[in-house]
């Protein structure tokens, strides 16, 4: 088990280097950021040259990449144009987005799996049809529509919740944004669980458990659910990364100053250190989430062993 984890962690190193390399070059392709700093004025050449020098932009692209990596390994992710270090930006943005992701994942797990089990156990009944129809609607409506509509209804009209999130973004303010962020995935989780449950109710081990005279509750939770969750866990695991990186729309609607906000700002201002730094961390999050999923397989399915 330990050796397996170490091997997986070591595999992340080439992925990490490769992704920073690709991202660095792609952001560079966006163009020279210095002209935009001057707004509608043409930069005066001496000041522009001085800024390029300060930002290490006056070197060749490979030299810039080596310089960036060198700093990276000493823990320096570079600086944004407003003078803040990217590590500082990460320190403020990631906790917020992680909290948002946790809220979203909890919604997915609790509501998604619950609905999945209920519909899976009552195939063809009105509950099943109703929930299926509902998930279809949720999947087909884009996030920004649900976001703005819920924000207006619950935040402005009914005043049940604040219409935007304050800068410190505590958990209780993130419930609505988390729900909006989770909605589409939640629908998928419901459908996945439903199908999986529906398939496994006919499995031999379930029939055995029922024949053994185990209480219904125990059959469902201990035997049926545990085995049906494997595809769902895979989905939720990969979804962690997607939610963290893909929260740009939700974060904009609810004015959450998280990862999506910093990425958006970085891209808009052609600020390569911000974009490369954040995306690199997101890549790591994806990798770790995948590792976590693989480890959870072993927990759910006794047949899977890692040596």
């Amino acid at each position: 088990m330990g050796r397996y984890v170490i091997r997986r962690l070591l595999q992340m190193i080439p992925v990490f280097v490769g992704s920073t390399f690709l991202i660095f070059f792609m952001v560079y392709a966006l163009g020279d950021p210095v002209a935009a700093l001057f707004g509608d004025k043409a930069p005066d050449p001496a000041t522009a040259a001085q800024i390029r020098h300060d930002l290490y932009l006056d070197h060749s692209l490979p030299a810039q990449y080596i310089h960036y990596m060198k700093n990276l390994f000493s823990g320096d992710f570079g600086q944004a144009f407003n003078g803040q270090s990217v590590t500082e930006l990460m320190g403020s943005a990631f906790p917020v987005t992680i909290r948002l992701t946790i809220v979203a994942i909890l919604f997915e797990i609790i509501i998604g799996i619950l609905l999945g089990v209920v519909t899976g156990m009552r195939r063809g009944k009105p509950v099943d049809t109703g929930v299926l129809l509902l998930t279809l609607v949720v999947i087909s409506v884009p996030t920004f529509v649900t976001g703005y509509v819920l924000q207006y209804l619950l935040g402005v009209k009914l005043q049940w919740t604040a219409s935007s999130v304050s800068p410190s973004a505590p958990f209780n303010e993130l419930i609505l944004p988390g729900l909006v962020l989770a909605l589409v995935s939640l629908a998928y989780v419901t459908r996945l669980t439903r199908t999986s449950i529906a398939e496994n109710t006919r499995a031999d081990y379930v029939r055995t458990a029922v024949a053994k005279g185990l209480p219904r509750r125990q059959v469902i939770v201990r035997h049926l659910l545990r085995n049906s969750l494997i595809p769902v866990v895979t989905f939720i695991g990969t979804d962690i990364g997607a939610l963290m990186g893909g929260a740009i729309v939700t974060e904009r609607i609810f004015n959450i100053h998280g990862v999506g906000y910093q990425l958006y700002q970085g891209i808009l201002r052609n600020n390569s250190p911000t974009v490369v730094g954040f995306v690199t961390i997101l890549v790591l999050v994806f990798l770790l989430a995948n590792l976590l999923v693989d480890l959870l397989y072993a927990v759910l399915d006794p047949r899977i062993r890692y040596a």
Partner: protein
Amino acid sequence: MRGATRVKWAVGVVAVVLTAAACGGGSDSGGGSSGSGIVRASWADPQNPLEPADTNEVQGGKVLDMIFRGLKKYDPKTAKADNMIADSITTTDSQNFDIKLKPGWTFSNGEPVNADSFINAWNFGALLKNAQLNASFFSYIDGYDQVHPSATGAKSTATTMSGLKKVSDTEFTAKLNQKFALWPDTLGYSAFYPLPKVFFDNPTAWESKPIGDGPYTVTSYTKGSQMSLRKWDGYKGPDPAQNNGVDLRVYTDNNTAYTDLQAGNLDLVDDIPASQLQNVKSDLGSRYINVPAGIIQTIAFPLYDSRWSSANSAKVRQGLSMAIDRKTITQQIFQNTRTPATDWTSPVLGDAGGYKAGLCGDTCVFDAAKAKQLIQQGGGLPGGKITIGYNADTGSHKAWVDAVCNSINNVLGNNNACVGDPTGTFADFRNKITSKQMTNPFRAGWQMDYPLIQDFLQPLYYTNASSNDSHYSNPDFDNLVNQANGATNTGDAVSKYQDAEKLLITDMPAIPLWYQNGSAGYSTNLSNVALNPFSVPVYNEIKVK
């Protein structure tokens, strides 16, 4: 027991993530509520460090205008430059200026505002090593070329400008390298604000909590998210804050700010989203402000390109100007938050300041028949079609560019004569323009730095000027600008500038489209809200109920 170990692993990892997430959460700071006399206002993240000479956009500028006062201040209503810290600024030859300061002004840390505060701040702003974005504002001062040589890679040979001389604590002199009669009126711009000694000791520490000499002090500043400003009780100037403070909160999306205003979470929004312009009157009624600001939008031509450099091309440009139905576009697309332009300046200057309605004459008025005729006389559109370049990332330019093209296409009876040409990011768009890669007209916007006719003409149309995106060059125009700058009184200077402006009608280096308005909305908690000519709310005059 293997299963149990695995569970422990998984639980461990989850616990680590949860702990990481919990850090920094829950500490709810700031966010003053109504009733405490605090204005809660929308903000956007300033692009650059909040140093006076390094701030060239509105978001940073609005903070500097709250925490600083300079030699002059522009009247929020008339845009006239009034003496603030300056007691008098006198000159006999429009080139050597004697600046006397009022005594008694201090920074909020108790340090006095004296001649050195200005001289040191200006020298810091001009010095090449500091790479300040507004350095060029000091370029009129004698000795600037030594402190800030213009060639790429050159080193400065001096650290202070020889044109600035201290006479006493309350008096200094400035020698310019050319005659510039209106120069004292430029001194209200934020680049010319004084700086306290603590700034020079440690600029980074100062930036994290700026100290100035204005009616507000910064009590807390979380970069990228919010800033709390409070009334400074020790402020002795004539314009103290009428409220207890301002909380600025960063919004990524102006739609959310507007929603927060409706929900009562915010008191003041100074950027009404385009999509809400139709509802804003019914939503806010008289709490919606829509007033002219010192911003003009134009379509500039790359006069360096052979397609636009021929003698006949000016006729085509005039024809294009007459082919644009400004009135309909400002009504339909901008819901009257723009006013059709009839000259190259802005109504906020006022008649005395050099604004002249209708200066452009018929050439800036829609006339389909005449437009078609002029374009044909000029040899038709170069290559039979044009594109209008714009940046697609901010400012929703697509809508009006498409409308302008549509108007031109209708006039010419050709659906392919004009199409929009988007560029992904503003940075890329500006790079193409400054490196002279444009071959077709492109959008250009100009927000004034200070309310002077000079600022609308010289930087944009003088030969090789800093924002002359068209690379327009007309010796007569340059000559008239020089005469205007050498004039001994403001009235003469303004009329010379207007003579120069008239040359733009025949040369048409840029088509004036419309004057942009500033718009804002506020909650019932506030009264006495107004926008100044820079489309920034006059924060210190806002009253909180």
